[in-house]
């Protein structure tokens, strides 16, 4: 047993947040550095700061990172991931998890492509169960319809929402664990996508569609290209369709989350389901709509990816789960529910895309990259716990 005299308490430990901040001021003055670190760590913009520091630091070692072409390219990598991560953010806030987003992307990508593709070649696709009935050499289901792309896109969004709705229905009505339900959906729908296409990529997508993934609204001319490693056009997209679509979705989601009754009810369910039920929150309906939204977001991401790649990809999203959840958690959304923001997810996605960019620039093997991703996500989860601990200390000692 030690004595009282040798006990030294670190000053930062007891510094208060919020209402008690005044009382903690004297202690804060005692160690300004710790207090500053604490404030940065607890800031909503922590991940943004980290991303910027990371970017500047890494650019010193890998000059290609800050080349305009690379920046533009990384931004285009962000948008589909942002769209799908926004849906995951909603699900995590209500204390759930959606593992099926990747397979929703696969199935919607394939279904959309099979609706509006202009050409399919027999030797690759005659193994598909739809060959000869719905699809043939002349292309997809609605290949000859002038509004094929519109119908296709609507079908993709509708299908994504429907799968999400099914997840939500199974979770609320049968009281099954979200992990289980969405795991089954993940396996089922990715298998279904492979079956429909006989595991082939569907190419020949109309330009009306691919423009959604590549089209620019405002581009910037940045002079002739400097570094041959990065293949890029001389004119770089500045404001692109994918950006408008993903940011529009994120802004709408942000407003729903922070300004509407629905958003408040989501946080309430994620914080305490029983209190919410006693207080008359229609938790079943909210949960179902949130999973539906998650499926919808995955479908939006599928549109952006498929249009950018110009193909319907039955394996789309199969390796994306870690990225989605990683970006969301890094953005400060808690896996325990009741906490999270679209803004945070935006920063998380930026951080994650930058991280991948750096890892690629380091020319690491894909296995090492995956391992690093895993470690970073673990650190993000640890950060979440450290932050809540700091906040709790401030509130109740």
């Amino acid at each position: 047993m030690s004595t009282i005299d040798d006990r030294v308490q670190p000053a930062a430990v007891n510094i208060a947040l919020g209402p008690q901040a005044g009382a903690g001021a004297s202690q804060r003055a005692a160690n300004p550095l710790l207090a500053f670190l604490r404030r940065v760590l607890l800031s909503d913009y922590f991940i943004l700061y980290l991303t910027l520091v990371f970017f500047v630091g890494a650019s010193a070692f890998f000059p290609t990172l800050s080349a305009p072409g690379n920046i533009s390219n990384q931004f285009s990598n962000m948008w589909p991931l942002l769209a799908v991560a926004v849906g995951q953010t909603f699900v995590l806030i209500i204390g759930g998890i959606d593992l099926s987003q990747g397979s929703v992307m696969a199935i919607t990508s394939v279904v959309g492509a099979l609706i509006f593709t202009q050409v399919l070649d027999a030797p690759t696709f005659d193994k598909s169960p739809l060959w000869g009935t719905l699809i043939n050499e002349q292309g997809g289901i609605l290949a000859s319809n002038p509004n094929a792309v519109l119908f296709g896109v609507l079908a993709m969004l509708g299908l994504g929402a429907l799968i999400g709705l099914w997840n939500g229905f199974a979770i609320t009505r049968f009281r099954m664990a979200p992990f289980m339900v969405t795991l089954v959906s993940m396996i089922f729908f990715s298998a279904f996508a492979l079956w429909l296409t006989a595991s082939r990529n569907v190419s020949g997508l109309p330009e009306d569609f691919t423009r959604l993934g590549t089209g620019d609204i405002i581009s910037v001319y940045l002079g002739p290209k400097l570094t041959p490693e990065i293949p890029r056009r001389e004119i770089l997209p500045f404001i692109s369709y994918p950006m408008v679509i993903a940011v529009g979705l994120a802004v709408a989601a942000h407003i729903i989350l922070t300004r509407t009754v629905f958003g408040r009810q989501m946080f309430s369910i994620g914080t305490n389901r029983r209190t919410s039920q006693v207080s008359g929150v229609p938790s079943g309906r909210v949960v179902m709509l949130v999973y539906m939204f998650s499926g919808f977001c995955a479908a939006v991401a599928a549109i952006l990816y498929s249009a950018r790649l110009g193909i319907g990809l039955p394996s789309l999203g199969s390796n994306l789960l870690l990225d989605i959840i990683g970006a969301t958690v890094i953005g400060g959304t808690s896996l325990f529910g009741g906490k999270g923001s679209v803004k945070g997810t935006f920063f998380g996605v930026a951080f994650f895309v930058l991280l991948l960019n750096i890892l690629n620039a380091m020319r690491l093997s894909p296995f090492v990259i995956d391992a690093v991703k895993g470690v970073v996500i673990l650190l993000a989860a640890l950060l979440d716990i450290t932050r809540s601990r700091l906040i709790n200390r401030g509130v109740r000692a």
Partner: protein
Amino acid sequence: MTTVLETRGLTKSFFGVAAVKDVSIKVSRGEILGLIGQNGAGKSTLMNLIGGVVQPDSGEMVYQGQRYAPRSPADANAARIAFIHQELNLFTNLTIAENIFIEGFPTRGRGPFQFVDRATVRHRTREVLDAVGLDLSPDMQVDRLSPGERQLVEIAKALYLDASLIILDEPTTSLTTRETEKLFEIMRRLRDQGKALIYISHILADVLNIADTIAIMRDGELVAYEPAANFDVNRMISLMVGRSIEQLYPPRTSRPGRDVLLELRGISAKGIVENINLKLRQGEVLGVFGLMGSGRTELARMVFGLDPFESGEIVINGTPLKRTTARRSINSRMAFVTENRREEGLLMNINIADNIALVSLPQFARALMLIDQRELVDSASSAANALQLKSGNIVVQPAKSLSGGNQQKVVVAKWLLSQPTIFIMDEPTRGIDVGAKYEIYSIIDQLAASGSGVLFISSELEELMGMCDRIVVMSRGEIYGEFTREQFNEKDILQAAFREGEGVLA
């Protein structure tokens, strides 16, 4: 008498506010020290200092003649100080014996062939169970025990660990009268065997009854520390609150009207409640008294639409319903203050304003479901002010940072905002201090005076007798007696609750 633990000028501040200020007390072998004080008076901090959860800013402790400065709960454990909390720390999925030996089983054999010595485990468990008067098999799983029995198992564990100081923090909250009596009997026996005990409780009569010495804390300071014989309940209260309370209950300012707001007709659910008939009138405070397991909470949950019932109907303002949901109940202006604030009443991590607004969220919706945040905050703060909620900024401060009494006010404020006419309150004063209780009682009176009906469920008979116009007694799922104010009599009501002749009265 030899001193077991002595604190000398213990002081501990949080954020510059002293939670414990210069507290010097001691407890000796063969003594029960009663420690009382309002919530936030510093009792818990004092216990946390003794338990090594937090360390003092100044002052020191002497334990069995040696300087004692625990840096962690493990140090307190090693020093053989046992804590028995309101929330029990037993593993319900393990047996009694496993719980008692959790910190280390006696073993036989060596190396990889080390086996738990089951015979010794059983034998020793039976010994300590006998010592606390529990006639149960050591192999019984803890989740099959009643709260009272679990409490005794905790004490048995303390005995097994040969604790010299046993600290009991609100141990009787979930116990029946009989179980409480039994606990006291065992505490007295332990005292006579030379243990030192510290007993913390909000039930002043119990403290007066069992303690040899009483210490009263207020705002972190020790305001009285004298032999129990020097106190009576009134003096204890005035020392705790720092002023004298003329009465424990506010005078009722209204009489019940004629209109029936809520009627239950033959509500039954097999094994839970049977044929419950009840009428709640306008302006009436109707008490529902019953022991643990009498079906009172279950009935309330059914009426509010949280649990299903099998037959019968609920009539709200003349409309009969076969089944209902929480949302429908809220729309018919019913409110339900549940017995568990933390689990069912509050969103602990969320700010006070959003907690208060939760039930009435749809009211604040404007075009596109967008919330009128300013109106929400205005409404929430006026509800908070009406109840004299003591808090900082309600938009920032999370509910969990409030004291028990103020948390309960948040729950009540939440329901007030939906302007209910039927108020179901299940144990609304549990675990809150005298001052906050009085405020809750005043709110109940005001609700009745404004024409609402209040269904006041409680296991504290005294408060029901103090506040209600009428009391119905539930026992084993049935209504087993009804008393109007003129007929209130503790003995008769308890007899109904215990079903005369079958139970031993306290």
